[in-house]
């Protein structure tokens, strides 16, 4: 089937939908499931690709946890699979660093950026604002396929002889700029940079689409202050991405130049392996500025969609309006602004001017204020509710708990005085895994459990969902809570064997425990993946249009809406999305006109 015909049939569907949704002719398999321009299908594509990457990234973490927990033990099976990377059944340092690097890159960018906002921005924006599709379905499709190509290139780097990039997910030069510096700095790093450049293109195409869709394509009556919070969150996420990803792209391109064209953007005064390089006058720190100018907003690119979805899910399941809708908007807005002004807190010990450092301390700790507001608003949303513990609601509650725990440790690291001691230790690893990694994953799981009925017309299995939640919740704390103590002892990150150290060899038992728990948690995630795919085909069927009793527009469509979302007219909106428990009614959908004697809020 050729592209031209696909586009044609897509257009035909559009035209037909305006009068009668049942009339459109069948799409071919390719145009329906592969080169689809339906935002819902693209969302599912992002989700499934994200799941595949999450399995790979998670498996990598299990492998390097084996090394950390059992540094003296040999696992012959590893040699069977990985050959010289695990000589004698032991993970070699180059392999270890390759695993860590790809684990970080993949989870931050491919899973928690593309897999999270790619999935839910695509699925929810048109459905919740009342649009038939994105502003540009074609660019939206391209966004996925650029991501797909980036994925293929990143995946291929694992299979090259010298191994994948191994300079850490931040890819700091000069290490990443010099082929002489190690095996992972050879072709693997080039592939990493190309994959990231394509990934950024994908992310920009998606982001521009989300922004223009939200601004231009809202249904009648859907003013900006009547938007559900997930949509607002996706909006800020997209703005952050559009403004900061190009900076990373420039950083990556300069790095490609330094690697391949002999420029000296990041290189100066280098003697490596006895070889004196000619480069002078570059600054290695420049890259760090460019990287973290994306890198910090990236944290919020990951977190904001989770926050938005958690707000929605908590409100729906507490059967109570979200507390402080405007405060939620205000805090997301200030987070989005401040996210651009805190990047140098990753660089307190690079020799940064101390005065500049102090400005970044102030701005960094400022960002804790909107975060605190959000937490208190979530707590108040639960207060005096009538809470249903669906798996989605549990994951949302878990998100809040993890966000509190991980957010508070951020106050340590944002304070430059304490950061001197804790910088680049296991404390940082524990902090960002809780607040950005696991918390955002919880937001994503909450979203999957909550909107799975909309995606596939079936439910996920509840019992497996509860098991998934409880094991992951307990496991996440068991893994990352004690890890803070390793950091307080000053133990640096990315140390694969501490037995040679006097200062850091006291945690062998702890490392074993963490490894065992992480294997269990990983196994339970596989169970979730199984539940996901099994339920797509065999799950309990959704029988009612609005299974959660929610107010937002996506539940006014058919159980499994076709391309174009609504069969007839797009519904008109008359109120904000959080009228739960108002005037003695359990919920009042957005489409219901405001009654004459309805109380105001």
């Amino acid at each position: 089937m050729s592209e031209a015909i696909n586009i044609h049939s897509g257009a035909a569907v559009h035209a037909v939908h305006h009068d009668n949704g049942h009339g459109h002719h069948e799409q071919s398999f390719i145009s329906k499931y592969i080169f689809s321009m339906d935002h819902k299908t693209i969302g599912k594509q992002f989700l499934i690709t994200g799941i595949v990457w999450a399995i790979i990234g998670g498996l990598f973490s299990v492998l390097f946890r084996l090394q950390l927990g059992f540094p003296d033990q040999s696992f012959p099976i590893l040699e069977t699979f990985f050959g010289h990377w695990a000589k004698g059944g032991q993970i070699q340092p180059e392999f270890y660093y390759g695993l860590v690097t790809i684990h970080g890159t993949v989870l931050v960018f491919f899973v928690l950026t593309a897999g999270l906002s790619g999935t839910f921005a695509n699925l929810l924006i048109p459905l919740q604002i009342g649009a038939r599709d994105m502003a540009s379905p074609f660019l939206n499709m391209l966004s996925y396929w650029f991501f797909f190509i980036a994925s293929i290139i990143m995946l291929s780097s694992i299979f090259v002889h010298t191994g994948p990039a191994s300079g850490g997910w931040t890819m700091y030069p000069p290490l990443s700029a010099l082929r002489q510096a190690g095996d992972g700095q050879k072709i693997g790093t080039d592939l990493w940079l190309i994959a990231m450049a394509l990934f950024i293109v994908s992310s920009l195409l998606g982001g521009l689409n989300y922004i223009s869709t939200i601004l231009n394509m809202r249904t009648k009556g859907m003013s900006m202050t009547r938007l559900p919070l997930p949509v607002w969150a996706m909006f800020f996420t997209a703005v952050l991405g559009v403004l900061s990803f190009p900076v990373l792209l420039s950083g990556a391109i300069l790095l490609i130049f330094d690697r391949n064209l002999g420029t000296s953007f990041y290189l100066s005064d280098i003697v490596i392996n006895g070889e004196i390089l000619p480069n002078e006058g570059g600054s290695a720190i420049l890259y760090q500025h460019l990287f973290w100018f994306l890198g910090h907003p990236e944290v919020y690119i990951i977190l904001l969609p989770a926050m938005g979805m958690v707000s929605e899910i908590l409100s729906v399941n507490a059967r109570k309006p979200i507390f402080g809708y405007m405060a939620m908007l205000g805090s997301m807005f200030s987070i989005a602004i401040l996210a651009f002004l805190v990047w140098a807190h990753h660089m307190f010990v690079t020799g940064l001017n101390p005065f500049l450092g102090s400005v970044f301390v102030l701005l960094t700790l400022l960002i804790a204020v909107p975060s605190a507001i959000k937490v208190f608003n979530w707590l108040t949303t639960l207060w005096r509710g009538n809470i249903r513990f669906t798996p989605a609601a549990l994951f949302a509650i878990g998100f809040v708990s993890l966000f509190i725990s991980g957010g508070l440790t951020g106050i340590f690291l944002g304070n430059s005085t304490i950061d001197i001691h804790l910088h680049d230790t296991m404390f940082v690893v524990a902090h960002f895994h809780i607040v950005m990694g696991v918390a955002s994953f919880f937001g994503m799981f909450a979203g999957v459990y909550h909107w799975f009925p909309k995606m596939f017309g079936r439910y996920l299995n509840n019992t497996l969902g509860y098991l998934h939640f409880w094991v992951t919740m307990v496991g996440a704390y068991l893994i990352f809570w004690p890890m803070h103590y390793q950091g307080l002892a000053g133990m640096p990150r990315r140390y694969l064997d501490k037995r040679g150290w006097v200062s850091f060899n006291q945690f062998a038992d702890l490392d074993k425990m963490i490894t065992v728990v992480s294997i269990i948690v990983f196994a339970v995630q596989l169970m979730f993946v199984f539940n996901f795919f099994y339920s797509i085909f065999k799950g309990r069927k959704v029988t009612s249009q609005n299974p959660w009793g929610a107010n937002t527009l996506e539940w006014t469509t058919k159980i499994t809406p076709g391309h174009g979302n609504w069969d007839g007219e797009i519904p008109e909106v008359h109120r904000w999305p959080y009228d739960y428990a108002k005037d003695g009614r359990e919920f009042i959908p957005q489409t219901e006109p405001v009654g004459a004697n309805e109380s105001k809020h």
Partner: protein
Amino acid sequence: MQTFFIVAILALGFLITFQIAKASEYVAVLRGYERSRLQSNRINGFLLLAFLIIGLVGVFYCNERLKGKILGVPASDHGVLVDRMLYVTLGITFFVFVLTQIGLFWFSYKYQEKENQKPFYFPHNNKLELIWTVIPAITLTVLVGFGIFYWFKITGAAPKNAMRVEVTGKQFGWEFRYPGKDGILGKKYFKNVNPAANNPAGQIWDDPANNDDIFVEQEMHLVVNKPVQLVIGAKDVIHDVGLAHFRMKMDAVPGTPTTMWFTPTYTTREMREKTGNPDFVYEISCDQMCGKGHWSMRGVIVVETQAEFDAWMASKKPQYLVANPGKDPAVKKDTLSATAPVTGAVIR
């Protein structure tokens, strides 16, 4: 074979879990979905409360188990400030942590779905929102104030009497240079680096300040209670001078020298007594990913009395004389003839 069994057991466990989950879904449909939903709601509500209580107990248990394993007393003046800031922050954040986690799980438990429980329509309240904007803002301002005050103390100019040591990181080890009697580190240029000609630091021999500079590897000696300023650089990639016991840290960046200063307050010997560990040494850890040997990039610092330090220093020969034996008055002329051409080439 063992691996096979483990995989088989995992698969079996998986299958059983799945069958139970599937069965419970059928039972739910048979018994009436609403009834079993309310039952699982009660179970999860209870579990949330249990998680809170067991979790808080776990936090204390974890602390009891691990608090002895973090580093103990800070061994520098700046370390005292860092630790004080750390514990003040810990106090405040721990209070907030307990408060909010109790709120979260207690509300979840208390307001779980019940028949006849009417949720309260409570969309916003300006007073409450103002309170929890202002209180965190004030608390954070205090933390920022203290933090910046200490930060400027730590990163401010080094005292006049501070001794200077140059620290250079390379894949995967540490090099140190002492300025010698004149107190000045001689000039260096990276293109002069030539370990074969005994010039690993790239010193410029034309600079007379280089004549008495001492070069050592892997082990740095410092004087107790005497401020020291480290001038930090790197040869190849970015490293980081991590001094966990002194609570200090600074990146080593090729091409951009950095500095940090502190005053060690306990000798290595004193720390051995304090920690009860006869093998205790101060270690330098590389804290910035620098390649495959990153995890093993270890240096040692010996903190000792002035007398011990002077004796150690006296045993070292300036690198200038090592590289140019012809200039060494202690070496007799006739033993030199073999190395003379090499020396000549280096001096140029």
